[in-house]
């Protein structure tokens, strides 16, 4: 009896895992259909053949935190497009199966050093673990450009990422514009003590303090990236401050929660919601007008500028500044139909 039940238990566990895996498998399968892995690399090679073939093909390894996510696929697409445009460049996209596979990423970087790559573009899975591999690559004379997520020692050649202080300030500017330069605003930040969150909050509050004396920040709450908690906190802000003019959600989940609270309270006309990032829910909020604007990061720029900078370094023109801000684009209900902005929103 006991044995039978334990067998049943194991069966259920395996079954539930299979269910999880198959639904996962379907998703990633769909991803692969829409993107065309490796083929862009081939086409880059083709076009290099066309362009008189004056020099050898420059091989760049694009190593991201994982391969199969829309975000990294966007980076890869941008890098491949840039490679195609330049002609004599070939980009190969590599990465561990998940962001947690730090040791696998280390192995990939080391394999690339031994292979005949001319440059590496890397988004580090871990700030410390990737320091040594980057040092090794540099020692082997391979330029390394970091994107999105850096490492704890500045041994790389360049680091392309969103400057979150600047991004927070951009959100503050948009908020100020939306509420006409005066009134009360509240902040729902996504975490206390995380550098990204601290930077965004600092950027926002400093911008308001320095340039908008008539705007008062009435409070900051931390929702731990839980939109339900964000919605509850935003509702309490709305109750406590009947004249509240705007709420800023400092990441995707915070903004979704804030938009929900404003909708529930019937205040989507009077309270301006500014968000961050461009998830499906944020896009839906922009379309319905509950979210008035959002700061969109530029993974495409990380891909294309990454390729350019690797080439610059190979040609002896390293960038003047190691840390390069790829910036954010403020997408608003006003400008979202502009094809250029639409492309950024849906990148």
């Amino acid at each position: 009896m006991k044995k039978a039940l334990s067998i049943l238990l194991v069966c259920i566990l395996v079954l539930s895992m299979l269910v999880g895996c198959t639904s996962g498998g379907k998703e990633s399968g769909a991803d692969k259909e829409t993107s065309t892995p490796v083929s862009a690399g081939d086409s880059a090679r083709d076009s290099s053949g066309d362009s008189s073939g004056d020099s050898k093909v420059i091989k760049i390894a694009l190593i991201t935190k994982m391969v199969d996510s829309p975000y990294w696929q966007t980076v890869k697409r941008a890098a491949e497009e840039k490679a195609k445009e330049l002609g004599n460049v070939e980009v190969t996209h590599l990465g561990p199966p998940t962001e947690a596979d730090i040791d696998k990423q280390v192995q990939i970087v080391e394999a690339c050093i031994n292979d005949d790559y001319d440059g590496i573009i890397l988004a580090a899975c871990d700030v410390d673990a990737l320091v040594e591999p980057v040092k090794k690559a540099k020692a082997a004379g391979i330029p390394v450009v970091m994107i999105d997520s850096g490492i704890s020692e500045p041994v790389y050649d360049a680091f392309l990422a969103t400057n979150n202080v600047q991004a927070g300030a951009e959100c503050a500017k948009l908020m100020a514009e939306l509420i006409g330069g005066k009134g009360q605003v509240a902040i729902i930040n996504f975490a206390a003590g995380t550098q990204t969150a601290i930077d965004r909050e600092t950027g926002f509050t400093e911008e308001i303090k320095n340039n908008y004396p008539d705007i008062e920040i009435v409070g900051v709450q931390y929702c731990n990236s839980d939109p339900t908690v964000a919605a509850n906190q935003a509702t309490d802000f709305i109750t406590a401050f009947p004249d509240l003019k705007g709420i800023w959600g400092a990441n995707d989940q915070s903004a979704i929660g804030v938009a929900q609270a404003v909708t529930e309270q019937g205040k989507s006309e009077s309270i301006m919601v500014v968000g961050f990032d461009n998830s499906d829910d944020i896009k839906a909020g922009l379309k319905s007008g509950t979210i008035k604007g959002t700061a969109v990061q530029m993974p495409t720029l990380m891909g294309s500028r990454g390729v350019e900078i690797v080439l610059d370094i190979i040609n002896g023109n390293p960038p003047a500044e190691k840390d390069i801000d790829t910036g954010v684009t403020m997408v608003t209900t006003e400008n979202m139909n502009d094809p250029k902005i639409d492309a950024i929103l849906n990148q």
Partner: protein
Amino acid sequence: MLRGAVTSKKSVKMGGIKVKSDLFQKFLAFGVLIVLSIFFGILTKGIFLKVDNILTIALHVTPYAILGFGLTFVLITGGTDLSAGSVLGFGGIVCAKAITLGVSIPVSIVLGILAGVLAGLINGLFVTKLNVTPFIATLGTQFAFRGLTQLVGQGKPVSIRALGDEKIISVFQFIGSGTIFGKVPFPTVIMIVTAIILGIILSKTAFGRRLYAVGSNEEAARLSGINVIKTKLIAYIICGATASMAGILLAARLVSAQSNAGQGYELEGIAAAVIGGTSVMGGEGGILGTVIGAFVMGVLRNGLNLLKVDAFVQMVIIGIIIVLGVWYDTARRKKQAESV
């Protein structure tokens, strides 16, 4: 020895003393709730006591309360379920995924709850058949169910809004944040109905009595012919079902299921139950107490927010309240044991 003494008293006088002490605990928690409400009412110059704000609090505590109901069942058996928050996320995302795949909303909700039932069954089998300590078993499944949730969502939210089907969006949104009878949030009505059903099961049925007996003294319960394994198994299944219910309501409120939904909520649910008089040692507790406990937490959060208390100070205050609740429970039990 002490535990034996308490139990024998309880099994002899099922009605008398136990009910009295339960009532007292509920009365105390309710008293705290009233005092807090008056306190916040005065300090916020009445804003706190406005009907709209009270209903807001009711909507906010609903998921914690529903999660707390199932946890109350498990806690009464002397167990615990640390995976409840993950099961919440799992139920919500299974339901949302089904909707995005074209399954009708009612069937999707049933699928979501079934996911929770299955999760509860797995927890229960680990605890009863494989004899793993509930704390460890459900700590393990906490990771496993969170992993499954992330797998279903591929680490991203499953957005119903992104479907763009206005009818589905409006129906789902109503389930999560719509109002009936004027301004009463629909999820809160669901919470009240669930509370009544589970409250009756707990206090009026043979199964309810067996649950208390198992939690008071498992050995004695076994010897008196109670099927301990079955009783515990059902408690874990109920916990899984209520957790997934809470998850579906949360997903419906946002019209999007988050793959990290419910992280840490199990502790909110346990806190609500304990503040409401459910003992972490098993054998005692009730649904009404958990409702009151959830409201104590909700009122504290809302009141402190309205008073513009710093976010970090709030965490300290809520932490202290939870410790006080557990300390009171322990002290009272000790006193009760000594008085026998």
